[in-house]
């Protein structure tokens, strides 16, 4: 008999939510985390008198009232919700393009009615189409939930799908732009509506319509939140809940090997203490790439595991600059929480330019003070700037040039922010920290420093992934949870995936026990 029912490798968002889901069902669960804090990217760090948010811009699908929004439902069900001091994000986004001849500079609110109203002001005549699109969004989200909560699609469901979810079926094979064009949304409204594309890292000619429209719906319909204590508070809350439910978590415990017996995963090796822990089931919050390439002995790997893994493409590699400024947001003129600054509203062109360090001029910039008042001392401001690289261009940077390259990108981000917003920030920088793809590569052992998991290519979008939830189950008793999985990247997706993966595994185990 194994000591544990479940071992979870990695306490990232997907690892934590799956672990709590298992523990709540009475399973004996061990989490092994290589860092001295839980959370993976969901963490914070301090510099001088500032505590920076490491990654979260805003958590979507978290409404104001109990049961509102998918993520809130999960947090409530798992008993994590009440442990967190929540702050609401005031507005959706301000989108600015730098180089488009017909420059966009719009500020969009949360709330479907408010959003449509504002869009009508910017793009007269767009109202009716926007109403239709949001009505469609709502239907799609409902169906998306349906698919997310089933174990893939089988013959018995076909009838239900075709009767109740026809719009989903029709939209599912297409990209966001194909659907928005078919809906007849004017180009400029499409450009403004597509601002969130950078949260998925895939251009709107490619990103699956269900994925993108669902994302917009989850933000605009339910608003967005973050935690007062940064995302480190979310991670600590999960850990505390996990322990209340009887779970065991070992930090500073790096799992370097998955132990296989008779073709099945039976345990893991903890490098720090050279110990083996055994479990009936292993949930890996690290990437399938890491598991297949490094953690499992090649002789134990089915060829299919290798082929599946090699077929996937990495999504955006992360770069974030964190600034602590010695002036208040009011003094600096920074009114918004979220600034989406792009070269162009043409997402295809934008993605292309983000393939190189020199070409990339896009950034999503957050002012934490405008979501969490008092998050830094009186008279100061916390800003963080994130961009993605759509190719592995940082791999060409030599060690000797590494610091200079960081500074080059940081300078560009500061200049572009000043140019786009007119807010002068350069002379007020009291603290600066920079995370590059190398930082993410180190922190989460992320291949190429990706922070977005696997690219949601046309053939590998979340619809296909959700319809094939077991497609990564290539080793018996080994499952994956988190940002590399079905729901794709992002906080909400990873939490949802962990929760759904745990439930899927338990259902499967029940079935097997009955059989």
């Amino acid at each position: 008999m194994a000591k544990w029912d479940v071992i979870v490798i990695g306490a990232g968002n997907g690892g934590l939510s799956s672990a709590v889901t298992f523990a709540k069902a009475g399973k004996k669960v061990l989490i092994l985390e290589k860092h001295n804090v839980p959370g993976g990217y969901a963490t914070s760090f301090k510099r001088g008198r500032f505590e920076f948010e490491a990654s979260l811009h805003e958590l979507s699908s978290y409404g104001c009232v109990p049961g509102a929004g998918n993520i809130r439902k999960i947090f409530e069900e798992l008993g994590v919700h009440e442990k967190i001091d929540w702050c609401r994000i005031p507005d959706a986004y301000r989108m600015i393009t730098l180089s488009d001849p017909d420059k966009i500079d719009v500020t969009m609110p949360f709330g479907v009615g408010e959003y449509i109203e504002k869009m009508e002001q910017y793009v007269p005549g767009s109202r009716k189409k926007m109403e239709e699109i949001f009505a469609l969004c709502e239907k799609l989200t409902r169906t998306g939930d349906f698919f997310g909560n089933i174990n893939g699609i089988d013959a018995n469901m076909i009838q239900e799908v075709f009767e109740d979810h026809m719009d989903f079926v029709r939209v599912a094979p297409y990209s966001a732009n194909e659907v928005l064009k078919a809906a007849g949304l004017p180009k400029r409204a499409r450009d403004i509506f597509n601002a969130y594309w950078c949260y998925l890292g895939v251009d709107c000619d490619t990103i699956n319509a269900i994925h993108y429209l669902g994302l917009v719906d989850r933000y605009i319909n339910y608003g967005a939140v973050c935690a007062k204590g940064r995302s480190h508070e979310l991670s600590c809350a999960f850990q505390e809940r996990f322990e209340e439910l009887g779970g065991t978590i070992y930090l500073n415990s790096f799992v370097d090997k998955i132990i296989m017996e008779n073709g099945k995963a039976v345990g893991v090796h903890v490098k720090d203490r050279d110990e083996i822990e055994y479990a009936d089931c292993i949930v890996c919050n690290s990437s399938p790439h890491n598991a297949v390439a490094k953690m499992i002995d090649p002789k134990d790997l089915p060829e299919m595991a290798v082929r599946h893994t090699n077929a996937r493409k990495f999504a955006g590699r992360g770069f974030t600059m964190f600034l602590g400024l010695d002036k208040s947001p009011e003094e600096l003129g920074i009114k918004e929480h979220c600034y989406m600054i792009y070269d162009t509203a043409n997402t295809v062109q934008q993605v292309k330019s983000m393939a190189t360090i020199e070409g990339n001029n896009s950034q999503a910039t957050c002012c934490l003070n405008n979501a969490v008042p008092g998050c830094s001392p009186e008279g100061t401001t916390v800003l963080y700037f994130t961009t993605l690289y759509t190719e592995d261009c940082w791999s060409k940077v030599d060690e000797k040039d590494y610091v200079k390259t960081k500074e080059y990108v940081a300078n560009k981000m500061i200049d572009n922010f000043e140019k786009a917003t007119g807010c002068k920030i350069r002379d007020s920088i009291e603290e600066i920290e920079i995370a590059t793809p190398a930082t993410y590569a180190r922190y989460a052992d992320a291949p190429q420093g990706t922070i977005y998991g696997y690219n949601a290519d046309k053939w590998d979008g979340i619809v296909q992934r959700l319809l094939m939830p077991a497609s990564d189950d290539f080793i018996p008793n080994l499952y994956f949870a988190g940002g590399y999985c079905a729901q794709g990247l992002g906080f909400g997706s990873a939490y949802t995936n962990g929760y759904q993966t745990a439930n899927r595994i338990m259902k499967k185990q029940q079935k097997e026990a009955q059989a």
Partner: protein
Amino acid sequence: MSKRKFIVKSNVLDIANFAKMIPTRKAKLENGSAAPVPKTYPINELAKLNHPGKIALVIDDIIVHSDDVKSFIFKSADGKKLAPFRAGQYLTLQLKIGNSIVTRPYSIASTPNNAREGFYNLTIKRVPDGFVSGYILDNFKVGDEITAYSPEGTFVYEPIRDAKTVVGIAGGSGITPFLSLAGSIADGTCEANLVLLYGARTVNDLVFKKELDELNKNDKITVVYVLSDAKTRGYEKGFIDAELIKKYAPADEAYSIFLCGPKAMYEFAGKEIEKLGIRKKFVRFELFSSASKANQIPGFPMEKEGLSFKMTVVRYGTETVVDCLSNESILVALERAGIEAPARCRSGECGFCRSKLLGGEVFIPSNTDGRRIADIKFGYIHPCSTYPMSDITIRVD
């Protein structure tokens, strides 16, 4: 809600395209390459080079400055390239002394380019009554293998943040990060000007004087020696105060002050810097654990002075009970008990020793409380800057 059916291409085509989705993905996955999945990528290798975690070093040479100050030249013990660092960063040595497992951070005195050439220089000064520095000075010999944590620290020059000119204030072994900075200015790695005010008691207490005199010839570097005990021609006399800073700092442009030195210097120079009315962003301190006794820390509950308690340590499912003292940090108690507790900066800042307080009372001085908001909320402490005030239980991972 609209009841209208939404059609993208055509009624038939949409359904046909939906039906293709799963087979297309299945085929793509099955047709992936059968070659081994790459284990690593260049950027992941750079990350490993920059942050290798624990590293194995060997002492290649020892330079004796005096009985109380020696420079240790470390090279890689296992043939791996040394981790690059930025001038001002520190290495944390991990040592077993008697039954204790201890860590100590030391600023690197050599330059980033020296690391590329294959060595680090740590110059270590004897701390009166110090537990570790004395051991190192009296025991380290050429050929010894030493375990360290790779370089880190935020006491570095950031061109985007800092002024063009740094006024460095150094005292005692606090000269080491400035030697590295000056060296990297001289070799062109760092684009800054440095005015270094180096305080010591007498000329004989000036470590690296020869090297600094040489660096002083560089246009971008000015070295000023400030002697407190002896009036000597060609040297400033007294302590580094506001007047002296003003005398040497650029008159017509902003400058950054970087300070590294013994505790007494922080206290004195700190007040002097305040008089200058410089924005916080232009003043940076390197905080190393001060040798001060806990009972000298403002706010220490004097009624608890000198008490000894029991500490229950929960580690990976096992429990150990060890002794601890109100006057000593919890980290010191762990180390004395031979528990290999994680620790690096030892000044409350880096958070590497973060542990959960499961029960008992503690004193956490506010000036070294570097905990995150959520860690305070959920009951975590940094043992390096926390003192037991009763029997306590902590979990150390």
